[in-house]
Every structure is written in C-alpha cells, then in structure tokens.
C-alpha cells in the first residue's frame, strides 16, 4: 500500500512540524489554529497508516529511508512566513488532490471525502495569511517572498505519480493537478503582491525524491526526536 504510506506520511510529518509551534505562535489565535490543523492532519495520518499496517509501528519503528512523505512537509518551520508558505503550497495541493479522490471511486474516496472539509479550512487559513503577510508591511512582504523562493524547489515533487493512487478511475490526473495548483497558487500570490519564482530558480520544479525514501538532512533529526521514547521501551503499551 505505497499510496497510503505516501499520503499518511505527508500528514504525519507536517502535523509533527506544526506541533513544534505549540507555545511559540505570534498570537494566541494562531496557537489554536496551528494546533487545530496539526490535529486534523494527525487524524488523517492515523487513518491512512492504519490502512497500511499498525499506525504506531509505522510511525515509530521505520527508519528514515522507509518514509514516503514529500520533502516539502519535512522542511523546518523557519519563521511564521516560511511555515505559512509551506502550508499554502501543501494545502492547495492536498485540497485539490482530495477533491479529485473524493469524486473518484478509488480506495481513498471515502477518506478523502471526509478530509476534504478539513483541508479546505487549512487552505483558506494559509491563503488568508499569505494575503495579510504579502500585502501587510515591508518586512512581512520580504519574509513571505523569501519563503516562496526557498520552498519552491520542493513543489515539483507533488506532481510525480504515486503508485496505487494515480490509477484509472481514481480521479487523479497529475498534469491537470499541476496546472490547477499552479493557477490557484499564482492567483493568491499575485493578490498578495508577491511573485512565484521564475527563471533559473524554478529549475528545482521537478526536484525531490521523498516518495522514494530520499529525504533532506533535517528529517533524520526530526524523526530521532519523534521516535526516541517509543524506541526506548520496546514492546511497551502507552
């Protein structure tokens, strides 16, 4: 079940990153919002990983090379703008993907139908913040543009086919997904008075091999923290 792992790991890893914000958010309302999104994603991860096996075994006992998440979601939080841009890139993708899966008749249709409502909220949250930050102050504009540039190279990976997901009847056409995503993200970014990277910077469009278990350096440290306690007590129940 490669596809369940791919989708489940995306949700698990991004949820973990958002969990790192707890107690550090710029305003109390964002403590609530970021935790809420993290919880939705964790809920999705648990359902998806359970389709592939035992959720805790998969989360806590796999090594780095066995994780199938996108490199985008494992990127460190950076500042609030960096986190929000990561949310924008991912949640627009996830929303479009889940809408299509929900409309199809593949194995993920029922799950996608439930999750799509949560993801629509995540997308709205990210888009609203990109507008505020891009069209806010000079500093917020600069930081958000920096986030868009830095994370751009991880976006191409979202449009590589995933075995078991991009089957006939699943409703997913990666090329159509890519075009729709690009249109939606461009619209938000332009309304926010920002620019998507073009020219040489966009050479990274197709980079990334998280689906093949090839991750970036910060990921190993992230799962070391995540797995440490569980691994220290083999066989224990919690």
């Amino acid at each position, binding site marked *: 079940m490669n596809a369940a792992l791919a989708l489940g790991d995306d949700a*698990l890893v991004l949820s*973990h990153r958002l*969990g*790192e914000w*707890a*107690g*550090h*958010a*710029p*305003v*109390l*309302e*964002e*403590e*609530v919002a970021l*935790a*809420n999104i*993290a*919880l939705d994603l*964790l*809920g999705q*991860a*648990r359902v998806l*990983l359970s389709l592939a096996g035992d*959720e*805790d075994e998969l*989360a*806590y006992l796999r090594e780095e090379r066995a994780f199938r998440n996108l490199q985008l979601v494992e990127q460190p939080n950076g*500042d*609030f703008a960096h986190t929000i841009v990561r949310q924008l890139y991912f949640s627009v993708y996830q929303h479009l993907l889940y809408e299509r899966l929900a409309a199809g008749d593949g194995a993920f249709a029922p799950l996608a139908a439930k999750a799509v409502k949560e993801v629509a909220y995540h997308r709205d949250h990210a888009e609203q913040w990109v*507008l*505020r*930050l891009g*069209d*806010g*102050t000079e*500093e*917020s504009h600069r*930081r958000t543009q920096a986030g868009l540039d830095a994370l751009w190279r991880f976006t191409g990976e979202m449009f590589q086919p995933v075995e078991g997901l991009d089957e006939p009847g699943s409703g997913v056409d990666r090329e159509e997904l890519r075009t729709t995503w690009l249109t939606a993200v461009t619209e938000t970014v332009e309304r926010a008075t920002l620019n998507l990277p073009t020219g040489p910077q966009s050479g990274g469009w197709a980079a990334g091999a998280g689906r093949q278990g090839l991750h970036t350096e910060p990921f190993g440290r992230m799962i070391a*923290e*995540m797995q*440490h*306690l*569980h691994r220290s*007590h083999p*066989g*224990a*129940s*919690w």
Partner: protein
Amino acid sequence: MVAVTPETGQESGLGADLGAQLAAAFDAAVAADERVEPRDWMPEAYRASLVRQMAQHAHSEIIGMQPEANWITRAPSLRRKAILMAKVQDEAGHGLYLYSAAETLGTGRDELLDKLHSGKQKYSSIFNYPTLTWADVGAIGWLVDGAAITNQVPICRCSYGPYARAMVRICKEESFHQRQGFELLMALSKGTEAQHAMAQDAVDRWWWPSLMMFGPPDDESAHSAQSMAWRIKRHSNDELRQRFVDIAVPQAEALGLTLPDPDLKWNEERGHHDFGAIDWAEFWDVLKGNGPCNDQRIGQRRRAHEEGAWVREAAAAYAEKHSAHHAVQNTATNEEAGV
C-alpha cells in the same frame, strides 16, 4: 443583579449619597447571590481584584501550555500525541476566553500580556516545574488539572457573571483532561517495570507542587477574606486543599502508586486525611521567580511575543489598508446611490 448603572443612578438624582447607595445595593445583590454584569456598578477594589485574579488565571493557561507542549514532539504513540495536542489547544482557548472575560472589566489583552511579560502579573507557580519524562504529562493531567478543577468548580458560581460563565465551559474541558491524565498514568503504572517507575517518579515530583496550587495557608492569604466576602471565592485555600487530598488518596490507590508523604493518613475523627507540612519556603521562593523554570517560561513567552511582532503588525497593516479601501468603495457606492 439590580441594574445599578451609573446612568440610572444619576437619572434618579441620588446626588452625594450616590456612592454609598450604590455600594449598599452592590453588597446586597452579592449577598443575595445575584450576578454582577459588566455594565453594573461595582467597587473599584472589586474590579481590580477580579482583573488580578482573571488575568493570573488566563496567564496560567498560556504559560501552562509550555510544560506539556514540551512533550508533543516526543509523545510515544499517535493516540497520545493527538490527545496532548488537543489539550494544549484547549489551553490556548481557555486563555482566550479568560482574556475576553477580563476585557469586560475595561482592561485589554495587550495590556495584560505586557504585565505578564514584565512580571507585574503572576501565573500559577506550578508551571515553573519542569516536565522531565513522559509520565509528567500524566501527572500534570491527574494532579495539576485535578487541583485546578477543585479550585475552579466553585468559581462557576462566582459573583462576576462573565468569569462564572467562562469557568463553566473551562471546567468541562478540564475534567476531560484530568481523566485522560489519570488514564495515561494507569497505562504506565500497569505497564512495564520501567514505565511504572516513571509514573511513580512523576507523582513524587508533582504531588507537593500540586498542593501548593491552592495558595498560602488561610492565615497568610492576603486576598482571601475580601474575595470570599465578594463571593469571588467560595471556600478557603485550606478547605480546598483538604478536599483535593481526600479525593486524590483513593485515586492514587486505584493507580497503584504511592503519594510521597509519610504523614498522610486517614483521621477518623475529622473524617479527612491528615497530611504532612508543605514547604512554604519553596512556595514563596518559586513565587518570587526562583523556581526551576521561571526564567525559561517567561523567556519563551516573551520571545514568542517579540518574534511574532512583525506578524501582528502585518495583520494590522493589511486590515487597515483593506478596511480603508472598503470605506472608500462604500462611500463611492453611497454617493452613486445618492445617500
């Protein structure tokens, strides 16, 4: 509550006696267990005392996120991680309710946060203790939330309406957290030897600080008598502490864990548990800022606020631009419509 607003007072021409009559009406209403609402007249000292207590309560929710959030990224199962994230989220929500309730008294959230950051207002001393193992998350749920609930349930009948209503909502969620903490400790206590030891160690470290949450003994509590007269408080610190001990002892037995107090024993005559002396020197020291985590907690809180300043400024600038834009559009539309 009788509608004694300054306006109605002036309309009825009470003149020089107004103050005394308002105070008498207030005292009578409070004595009759009526609720005071934001527009009602209230003594300045009552207002100040409530602001102090509610702000401290709100700050405790916000600072209290830190010791638990410390374990979110290390929670040992996905189920526990989800429970812990939900709990920390609830705490941020409780902070928001309480700041809103405090704002009905004419103060602002920004002002209150400034006072927290500058040390002018306090938060519960319990959150100055560190969470050293996973079991601490369970001990906080069981003991710290248990003590908080014992303290807070009577506040659901507090004389100030907005505070009482906030507490009704908060206590429901807190009770849920407490059961989860108990259940977490139960899983550890009945788990492996190492897990059981982890649970016992956590209870040993959190027991006394939890008893300190009820505040100083009655004869040293500066605000108690007045708070009880105003029906902000319903029971004394020592009464609530005793109630908590009596509830916790059988729960510890059910958990298969001991409480770290050799003097703890049932007193048939009193119908209560006797317990050992609290180290009040430690309590006052932590309150003065010298606990294990005081600097760390307030430091993280200040940093989050300072590092988030540009985000709040961006949101304000955006709102201003777009509301100004909106207003211009509305004016234009109104002119077109001949309004």
